[in-house]
């Protein structure tokens, strides 16, 4: 809401400058976002009455005028305008006045170039003491056909002041609960309450109906939907002459951010800005049957609004109809079929209260926001309808010559409820934590327009009708607090609530541990946005088989689905960096992915994923670096699993045909823990790598962190004491089928459960040479140990021979010679 200070000062007198007013409003929750100082761009131009007009003795097209500038005196001016006539009120630039240097349009910028001071001149032999100005010369418009004619004004008074040209505009952000502040009057009330001064409401002039010629315009108003429209008031006016508004009115509207249209429409907007009551003017002759029916659209499927667009209606939309058809979308916009135009002579003014929800629904559905709907949605004063009609009628009479053509028709289908709030003696103190005396509470609430009375220890507060947001003690506590100033509430530290120890959610702890491991492995954390392109979800379906979630109202097609996997985000970050000087990229992300279950629920689960491309360990002088490949990324994945609480044991299972299609078919694996697939690891498919422009292998892994947590948080294992007796190592080279996985060899040996065998570890794989082409040799280190004694050579030899014998039988293995 843009609030011109000059307008505000008509309703409240505050002994404070505009900065102080802005600060105070902001602290009280009526945030002043900006202050704009506007000025006329001219000075020493006053209002003057033209007393006499004579032809210039030496020039046909010039006139010699005598003007009366009130206390400043009478002056003789030469004027070339064709419209100058005696008796008119005009703008007179005195000698010494400063006008705009260039020719500008309407409106005032903060700084305007000014011409040098006006000097007395002799024009065709006659002296001219200043000049009469056109709108263009004053920068008010491009109008230059004649001089500006004013509709009123005290001769000698400053023109800039009279036309509100010098002003400060406060740009105020009004929160949705404060519909009452969407008017000059509402803001004036707020300021009066904040500064403890009196509010001066605008004058309400009684309707002038006595000059009306007796043939009262017959109007019937009927509310068929009292649930959506509790009150509808209307006033017919006749003898209206449609034309442009006077400068002062146009200027006010412009400062308040609205565009001037024509006098009648401008007057309704002016009163809306001033009092907060949206008004609408119909061309009365276009209303069939002279009737107004406030009803649901029902079977009417469409109407054309003032902006010329056809709007589809639904049955529940509230419309204003005449005897036949909708003529306005209630509270949103008028209809083109009843619009006030140049020919209009009789109008019907509407001043109604529409329920916020109905206006909001219709306006939102049609994407049609107006100054009116904005106010109705937030709740206007349900008692202000008749007052606004009085006010607008007096302005229309003044600026367009119209007069009331009958009394105000006021249909109140449902009077507003009186809202009484009972305040227990300590209610406000309990909320704010500071004692506020009863008298102060009462005084502050009254300053907002509330009624307050005492009932024993309690206060009974009647909320003002224009404050629908005040319904319970907490609301009143807020009013008292913000009027008093939040600075007046002390800061106190609560006793520590007895909620128990400050625990942390286990998934967060788990994520934190995971981050530590990733950092230690040299991966940098990234964050990517969870919206993704459908193609990325198809290419990288991640872990889990739920259905992809599509965003109903995405920002773009590229961001239209929720990610199933973190890998596309890592790849995008990698590409971003490779395009900007980076040669390698090692990163991870912890974040949520989203899928729908068969039952329609949309679970989200946490993932951790990593990527490694390019040089991992950097080359130094005299030693080569290590370029990331399958084993690098697998090593990181394994290090991660080993670092987790419980160190879950994982199986790496080659994908079946068609699985993990984005990975190299021979250099990828599912990661299975306790028989469940919790992740995968591998190099990107070479085709994909080429497509991404990569010059080497790029490893990725992804784990379901939520499922890992289930393993990680299992009971802590009992601590084993370090062994006290030495172990004996025996190495073994087994020649096995080339297709046999190393893991299967180790598992087969472990499963023998040999008594003294503590562990087996793979240290070498060899193919070629003396090994037959379909075989490979695996080097295995076997560690033997007894808990209670040092083993003898003989014991170890027997155990090892036993192992070899069983391995032969079990794996069809031969000892490598």
């Amino acid at each position, binding site marked *: 809401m843009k609030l011109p200070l000059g307008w505000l000062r008509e309703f409240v007198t505050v002994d404070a400058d505009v900065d102080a007013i802005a600060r105070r409003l902001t602290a009280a929750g009526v945030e002043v976002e900006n202050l704009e100082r506007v000025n006329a761009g001219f000075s020493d131009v006053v209002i003057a009455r033209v007393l006499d007009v004579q032809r210039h003795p030496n020039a046909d097209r010039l006139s010699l005028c005598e003007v009366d500038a009130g206390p400043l005196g009478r002056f003789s001016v030469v004027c070339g305008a064709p419209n100058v006539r005696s008796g008119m009120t005009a703008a007179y630039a005195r000698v010494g006045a400063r006008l705009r240097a260039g020719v500008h349009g309407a409106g005032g910028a903060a700084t305007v170039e000014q011409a040098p001071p006006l000097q007395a001149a002799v024009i065709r032999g006659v002296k001219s003491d200043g000049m009469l100005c056109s709108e263009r010369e004053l920068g008010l418009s491009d109008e230059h056909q004649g001089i500006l004619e004013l509709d009123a004004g005290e001769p000698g008074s400053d023109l800039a002041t009279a036309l509100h040209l010098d002003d400060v505009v406060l740009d105020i952000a009004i*929160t949705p609960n404060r519909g009452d502040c969407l008017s000059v009057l509402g803001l004036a009330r707020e300021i009066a309450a904040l500064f403890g001064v009196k509010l001066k409401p605008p004058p309400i002039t009684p309707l002038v109906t006595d000059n009306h010629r007796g043939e009262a315009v017959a109007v019937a108003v009927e509310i068929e939907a009292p649930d959506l429209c509790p009150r509808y008031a209307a006033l017919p006016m006749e003898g209206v002459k449609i034309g442009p508004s006077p400068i002062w009115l146009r200027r006010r509207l412009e400062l308040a951010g609205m565009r001037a249209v024509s006098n009648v429409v401008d007057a309704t907007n002016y009163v809306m800005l001033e009092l907060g009551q949206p008004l609408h003017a119909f061309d009365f002759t276009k209303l069939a049957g002279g009737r107004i029916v406030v009803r649901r659209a029902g079977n009417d499927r469409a109407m054309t609004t003032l902006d010329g667009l056809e709007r589809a209606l639904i049955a529940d939309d509230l419309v204003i109809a005449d005897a036949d058809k909708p003529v306005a979308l209630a509270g949103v916009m008028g209809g083109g079929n009843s619009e006030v135009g140049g020919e209009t002579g009789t109008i019907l003014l509407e001043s109604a209260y529409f329920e916020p929800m109905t206006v909001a629904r219709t306006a939102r559905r049609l994407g049609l926001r107006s100054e009116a709907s904005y106010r109705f949605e937030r709740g206007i004063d349900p008692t202000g309808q008749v007052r606004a009609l009085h006010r607008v009628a007096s302005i229309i009479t003044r600026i367009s010559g119209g007069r009331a053509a009958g009394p105000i028709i006021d249909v109140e289908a449902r009077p507003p409820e009186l809202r009484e709030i009972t305040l227990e003696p300590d209610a406000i103190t309990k909320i704010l934590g500071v004692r506020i005396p009863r008298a102060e509470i009462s005084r502050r609430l009254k300053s907002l327009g509330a009624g307050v009375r005492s009932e024993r220890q309690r206060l009974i507060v009647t909320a003002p009708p224009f404050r629908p947001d005040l319904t319970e003690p907490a609301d009143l506590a807020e009013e008292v607090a913000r009027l008093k100033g939040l600075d007046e509430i002390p800061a106190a530290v609560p006793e520590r609530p007895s909620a128990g120890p400050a625990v942390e959610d286990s998934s967060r702890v788990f994520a934190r541990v995971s*981050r530590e491991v990733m950092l230690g492995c040299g991966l*940098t954390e990234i964050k990517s946005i969870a919206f993704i392109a459908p193609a990325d979800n198809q290419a990288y379906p991640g872990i889990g088989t739920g259905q992809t979630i599509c965003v109903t109202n995405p920002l773009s097609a590229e961001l239209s689905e929720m990610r199933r996997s973190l890998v596309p985000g890592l790849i995008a970050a990698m590409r971003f960096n490779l395009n900007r000087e980076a040669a390698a990229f090692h990163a991870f992300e912890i974040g949520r992915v989203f899928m729908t279950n068969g039952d329609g629920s949309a679970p*989200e689960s946490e993932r951790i994923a990593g990527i490694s491309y390019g040089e991992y360990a950097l080359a130094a002088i005299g030693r080569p670096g290590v370029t990331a490949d399958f084993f690098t990324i697998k090593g990181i994945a394994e290090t991660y699993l080993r670092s987790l609480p419980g160190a879950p044991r994982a199986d790496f299972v080659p994908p079946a045909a068609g699985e993990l299609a984005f990975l190299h078919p021979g250099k990828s694996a599912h990661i299975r823990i306790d028989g469940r697939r919790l992740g995968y690891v591998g190099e990107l498919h070479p085709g994909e790598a080429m497509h991404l422009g990569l010059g080497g292998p790029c490893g990725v892994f992804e784990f379901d962190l939520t499922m890992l947590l289930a393993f990680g948080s299992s009971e802590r294992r009992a601590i084993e004491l370090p062994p006290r007796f030495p172990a004996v190592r025996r190495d073994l080279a087994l020649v096995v089928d080339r297709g046999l996985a190393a893991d299967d060899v180790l598992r087969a040996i472990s499963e023998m459960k040999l008594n003294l065998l503590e562990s087996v570890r793979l240290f070498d794989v060899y193919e070629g040479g003396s090994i037959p082409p379909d075989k490979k040799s695996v080097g295995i280190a076997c560690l033997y140990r007894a808990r209670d004694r040092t083993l003898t050579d003989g014991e170890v030899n027997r155990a090892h021979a036993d192992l070899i014998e069983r391995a032969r039988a079990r794996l069809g293995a031969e000892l490598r010679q």
Partner: protein
Amino acid sequence: MKDQLEQIRSRALAELADDAAEAAIENVRVRVLGRSGELTEIMRRMREVPPEERPAIGQLVNQIKAELEARIEVLQGRLREAALERELAAARLDVTLPGAHLPRGRLHPVTQTIEEMLHIFRAMGFEIAATRDVEDDFHNFAALNFPPDHPAREMQDTFFIGGGLLLRTHTSNGQIRVMEARRPPLAVVCPGNCYRRDELSVRASPMFSQIEGFMVDRAGKITMAHLKGVLTEFLRAFFGAGTAVRFRASFFPFTEPSAEVDISCLLCAGKGCRVCKQSGWTEILGSGMIHPNVFRAVGYDPAEFQGFAFGLGVERTALLKLGVEDMRLFFENDLRFLNQFQATVERLA
């Protein structure tokens, strides 16, 4: 024989001069002390010595042997030292050459900011709860006192994902989820991602993180004064002890009274600059006393319980603290940006 021994001794000592070479020393050792050396020879001929002289000769032999061995040890030690010196001199590296680097991970600045904030909240007695990103209308709006069709809903432009579900627009759903499941006293913070229909730009992102916090206890026990105390303490811990904190009345559907919290501008320390639009203040978080309707929605009696809540945007706060202005930096993941942050989960004091 005694003379002979004396001769052996003096000859050997003469050869074991200070500048004796390795070979000369070895030569003496073999000739005198070796298995078939001169001293062994003397011992073998001991039978020729009269028995009463034998102990004296034997003693003399041992004495000479010890003396020469000691001398050889000294000389060899010197030689070893000298050799080591030469070796070390030869093996001198250019220590300014780079080491063999392992990659170094960095923590994302947003994570770091969240951890730092949670660290402070934990110390103030808050527990940390996880909440969900995918929500229904009730938990994201209705229970938080956003009536349907109310203009307040437009303060937050929502992503919908079908099935009556949406992506939460704030972490305030955490209040509802936690209160539905538990009874006061409660002191909880919920960090998490939120989503709003804003294009990624200098000022906004369609996904961002927030930390929601709330404290609820018996009516009258947690007041607006405590809201001010807790948030002031938190902001001073996070931004520095000298930070000024200001509370302004405001509006949020789920709090009443509501307060916007500002801190003194970090750039100009409150004097007024371009960034704070000359006001000297920067808006930092929203807060208020939990609205009675929120308590009603979770089945608490508002006459019985009372508390405050607040919500804080992490990225915006991180930008303020880092003194940069572009939200996109957090989601582009440019290593040249990320590498400037420390690599630890723990907050360094």
